[in-house]
């Protein structure tokens, strides 16, 4: 999921950097406020730990997906849960990504903004604000950590595909399906690792985990957040489906005819998507001909990718609103 340099036009890379910088500034504020003198080494050690975890990719049973991209655990949810703040995840992931980008060339310099947004910001926020409410509502730390881990990997992967599609360097449908399917599986590993790691840490050193809310503090509005996340996820999962089926009834049938048979392998997926697309192009004679049915929901000039992007942004805003409302309610109580 580490996007290299050269896959974004410079203008978009700069835009992502600007957004990332805002969040980095916020995370710095967190660091100044929360990261007391004693916590500096702890945070550093956690950063080193996340880095180490990301190197564990060799040990993961990737073989369950034939071929495909190499994937690894990101650890954003873990960082956020352990340190008790999504900004901690942003802070730590920024450090990790700088190290990876500048020393290994894993993830680009210009693309680092986008990578920080995907893995740090989205991973941290979704990880943390999935874990807490789910834990509060269902009273199951293990499940909460699992779901948080899964979500914190899956959402960034989807967003990553959308970003690349907006940049025009990865066809949307193909990107969504490959990235989505692949990271849905890697997400299980991320979720499992997060859940087992959290349960071991809580078992062995309960004092480490500061993301724990004292028992009984079931917040009003947690349900709202859970619902928000569910909607976000639902749309994220259906986005590729929507994207692939929308264009043309004929093509979608064509696609699913092939798709139904061979969901298991990534490569075939790609090929049928390609064929679907090319069929569309041949029919219309122009690759830009897909028209948005509801122009109001799309970003100008971005057509199809813009649409999905708009929907995703909408969901995220919805989610943040839901979170804000729940916070507001909680404060009143």
């Amino acid at each position, binding site marked *: 999921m580490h996007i290299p340099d050269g896959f974004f036009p410079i203008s978009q890379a700069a835009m992502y950097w600007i957004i990332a910088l805002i969040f980095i500034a916020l995370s710095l504020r967190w660091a100044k406020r929360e990261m007391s003198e004693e916590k500096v080494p702890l945070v550093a050690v956690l950063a080193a730990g996340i880095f180490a975890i990301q190197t564990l990719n060799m040990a993961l049973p990737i073989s369950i997906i034939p071929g495909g991209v190499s994937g690894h655990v990101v650890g954003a949810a873990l960082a956020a849960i352990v340190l008790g703040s999504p900004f901690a995840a942003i802070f730590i992931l920024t450090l990790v990504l700088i190290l990876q980008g500048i020393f290994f060339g894993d993830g680009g310099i210009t693309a680092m903004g986008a990578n920080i947004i995907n893995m740090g910001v989205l991973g941290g926020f979704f990880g943390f604000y999935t874990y807490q409410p789910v834990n509060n509502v269902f009273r199951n730390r293990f499940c909460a950590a699992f779901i948080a881990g899964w979500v914190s990997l899956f959402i960034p992967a989807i967003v990553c595909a959308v970003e690349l599609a907006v940049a025009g360097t990865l066809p949307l449908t193909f990107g969504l399906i490959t990235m989505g399917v692949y990271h849905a599986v890697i997400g299980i590993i991320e979720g499992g690792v997060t859940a087992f790691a959290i*349960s*071991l840490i809580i*078992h*062995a*050193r309960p004092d480490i985990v500061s993301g724990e809310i004292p028992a009984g503090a079931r917040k009003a509005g947690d349900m709202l957040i859970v619902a928000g996340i569910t909607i976000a996820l639902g749309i994220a999962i259906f986005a590729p489906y929507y994207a692939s089926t929308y264009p043309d009834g004929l093509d979608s049938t064509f696609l699913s005819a092939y798709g139904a048979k061979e969901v298991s392998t990534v490569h075939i997926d790609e090929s049928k998507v390609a064929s679907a697309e090319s069929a569309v192009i041949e029919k219309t004679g122009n690759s830009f001909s897909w028209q948005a049915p509801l122009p109001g929901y799309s970003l100008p000039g971005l057509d199809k990718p813009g649409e999905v992007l708009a929907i995703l942004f909408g969901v995220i805003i919805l989610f943040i609103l839901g979170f804000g409302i729940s916070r507001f309610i909680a404060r009143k109580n």
Partner: protein
Amino acid sequence: MHLIETRYLTYTYPGNVTALHSLNFVAPRNARIAVIGSNGAGKSTLFKCFNGIFRPSSGSVLIRGEPITKENIREVRKFVGIVFQNADDQIFSPTVEQDVAFGPTNLGLDEETIHHRVEEALRLVGIEDLAHRVPHHLSGGEKKRVAIAGIIAMEPEVLVLDEPTAGLDPKGVHDLVEFINSLSRKYGMTVIFSTHDVAMVAEVADYVYVMNKGRFVAEGSVEEIFLQPDMLRSVRLDVPVLPKLIRSLNTHGIPVPMAYTYEDVERALITTYKGLPRDSTLP
């Protein structure tokens, strides 16, 4: 056929540090072998060659006469169990029981066998009562035992211990020495261990290899090795304090017969003093 044999074993770390130079090592059945040497002599590196964690850069490692290959590596690891120096590296489950079960589970045994082995291993090292504890909160000596139990549960025929007594208190050392000796005596297990504690060598080992800078500079029975104090000192080691004392008494003209373990030394001194014939038993 020896259980473990190395022939001209050489190992070079990726950074071009040659840690082992052409070693010939032999571990026969039911032996207790000590490998002693200063810091950085290469003891840990040697041990890691015994179960295929490191592949020889040249030379070979034979386990029951056969070289280690991709095919038999699981067999080899089952056959040669290594307990590392730092118990913390070896313990990664939420409870002691789960940790001990880790190895047998990986071997693909069925649940009943696993359960049986875990119980047996815990009993053997004497920590049945710790089964459901969190390993992180145990004391140094207890952690060490958990680490050993984790290996014992895989029922290896050769047990390799890297500095088993480091950081333990005297009672812990004493218990561990007893335990190692009982493994060899009762179960006929072959035990190979490294240590800096020369006094322990006299209590536990039958045969000693002395390492320095990746080479064996001497090997032999405990007596043969401790008869060479100059060699030992030249490799930053020393003769244990008791034989050293007897030797110094000898040079002062007091004819105390040489002895190595505490009990033997005590007897030697008493018999000498009382002028009794050497082999008489004490009251």
